[in-house]
């Protein structure tokens, strides 16, 4: 599994991808993603927005789990911090864009704070600390008095953007789409740049990366900050989409959903993260009507993926996409 996102393999998957895929396909995809939800009913438009949110969540989590290879389970904490920070800012009268920026910064700060102990502690101990952080934050939301309104949660004001109030599902979807595409592009470029390769190098061998003169601690912190910031943006969008956030939304079940999406998508896979999020968000909400069913389905999925397709969709497709591309778009890779 470790070779999936090793620099050479990813270079094979990514380096020429944008050159090789004809522009027509790219344009059609963009048009399809932007206009497709017009043909859906309100419920599925809501699900489409949720897919965008979970795409960012999964990618952010994957930066830590897959690219940096650290057992950092604080993703739900970043998600919650982003959601609460953005909501509090918007309740204070901010528009959507500055509000989401507050979520972004809040998530980034949370990532930074979790990243500092991660310089000293690794593996299981890090997993335990980050798990504890998530639960500690949930306790804070419950006992936060007038700031977080306890277990009943916070009401999120209507999205205000450039003088307009966005209340329709499709309007929210388009706004979220712009932000998601922006975040995905920046993240993809970051991961493809020397920074991304350095993060993978730190995962593969910290001593080698230190020996090559890399600032391993800096890249480690950077991965945490960027992961937190991405998930923080997703948290802000989540708050706006739902209209109310409660401490319950940021508990252990949420963590399971994030885990499953990353593992189904594939550790350290960019496309995989997107596919994992899309696929698992589409699992019908009806599961939630039966207590426990959501946990059963997601955990079985997680077990099956870990046991039989440990490289996830990303790794599974990765080998095949380059093969297909060779066949259809002339064989350089």
């Amino acid at each position, binding site marked *: 599994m470790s070779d999936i996102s090793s620099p050479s393999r990813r270079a094979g998957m990514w380096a020429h991808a944008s050159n090789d895929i004809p522009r027509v396909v790219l344009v059609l995809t963009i048009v399809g993603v932007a206009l497709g939800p017009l043909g859906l009913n309100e419920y599925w438009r809501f699900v489409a927005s949720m897919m965008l949110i979970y795409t960012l969540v999964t990618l952010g989590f994957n930066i830590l789990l897959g690219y940096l290879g650290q*057992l950092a389970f604080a993703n739900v904490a970043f998600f919650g911090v982003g959601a609460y920070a953005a909501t509090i800012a918007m309740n204070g009268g901010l528009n959507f864009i500055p509000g989401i920026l507050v979520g972004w910064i809040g998530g980034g700060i949370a990532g930074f704070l979790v990243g500092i102990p991660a310089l000293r502690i690794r593996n299981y101990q890090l997993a*335990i600390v980050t798990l504890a952080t998530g*639960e500690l934050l949930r306790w804070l939301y419950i006992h936060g008095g007038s700031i977080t309104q306890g277990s009943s949660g916070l009401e999120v004001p209507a999205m205000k953007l450039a003088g307009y109030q966005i209340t329709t599902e499709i309007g929210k979807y388009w706004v979220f789409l712009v932000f998601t595409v922006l975040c995905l592009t920046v993240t993809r470029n970051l991961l493809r740049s020397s920074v991304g390769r350095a993060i993978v190098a730190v995962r593969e061998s910290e001593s080698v990366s230190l020996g090559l003169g890399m600032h391993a601690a800096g890249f480690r912190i950077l991965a945490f900050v960027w992961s937190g910031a991405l998930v923080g943006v997703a948290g802000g969008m989540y708050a706006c989409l739902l209209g109310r956030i409660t401490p319950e939304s940021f508990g252990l079940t949420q963590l399971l959903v994030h885990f499953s999406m990353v593992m189904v998508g594939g550790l350290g896979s960019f496309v995989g993260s997107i596919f994992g999020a899309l696929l698992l968000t589409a699992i019908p909400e009806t599961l939630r009507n039966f207590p426990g069913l959501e946990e*059963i389905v997601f955990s079985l999925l*997680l077990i099956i993926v870990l046991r039989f397709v440990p490289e996830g969709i990303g790794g599974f497709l990765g080998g095949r996409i380059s093969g297909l591309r060779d066949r259809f778009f002339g064989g350089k890779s």
Partner: protein
Amino acid sequence: MFAQLVASGLVQGSIYAVIALGMTVLFRSTGVVHFGYGAFFMAGAFAVYVFSQVIGLAFVLAFLAAVAVLVLLGMACERMLVRPIAHGPHVAVAMMTVAMSYLLTGVARFFWGQEVLRMPPIIDVPPIFIGSIVLTAQDLLIIGGCMALVVAFFLFFARTKLGKLMQAASQVPRGAALVGINVPGFHMAMWGVVAGIAAVAGTLVAPVTMLYPDMGAHLLIKAFAAMTFGGFGNLGGAVLGGLIIGLAEQLAGFYISTALIDIFAYLVIIVVLIVLPNGILGKKEATRV
């Protein structure tokens, strides 16, 4: 009042100690940190409930049946889920135990998620007064049972040949395999043993806390705190850590604020790992370069 708090702290602490001990034993012998151990504990409690209250077996039989079920469950998990991916990255193995945890919790919630189940006390005798301290028979049973398990484990590892073999197999698996120890079989046995311990702990605690699907998740964090506090992977440290956390939780809850009881363990984890990463009994570990 102080004495009473100490007594109830020790009762709580001995539960944490046993769960932390089970996880430490598994970690020491197989190198796996079992994020699903809390759920195994919960499953043990539910199994006793099902055997004694739903099926109607006598308590002793129900208890033995629950332990047997959990031992088999633990062994099956190792054989079917962990062993095939044991040579993969640590992240995958950790995730697998997380998935086990959610699966068991989900099943419990699916069947019994709506109500909090009551388990009648194991022995029905009036509470005992020692000076100003009140202890129920159940409390004494918990302390006694937990301490018996702890002592049994220490004797097993320190005195018996099998215990020594197990330590050898965990320290140098390849070397142990070379001298003819069945290492995979030993791993499977350890998964069974610790699952059995979880069932015993679940049985002891069930009448006090009542049964609900999330009872394992809460306990897991406390056990992690105990392990962290005592030095990760240290058997004595896990037990001591459990007792100290149980005590400190009660005292902090009474003298500072009751809201602290819920998060005391989290605070301990975070502070200890940042200030004293090797715990109170752990040895300093040199990073191999």
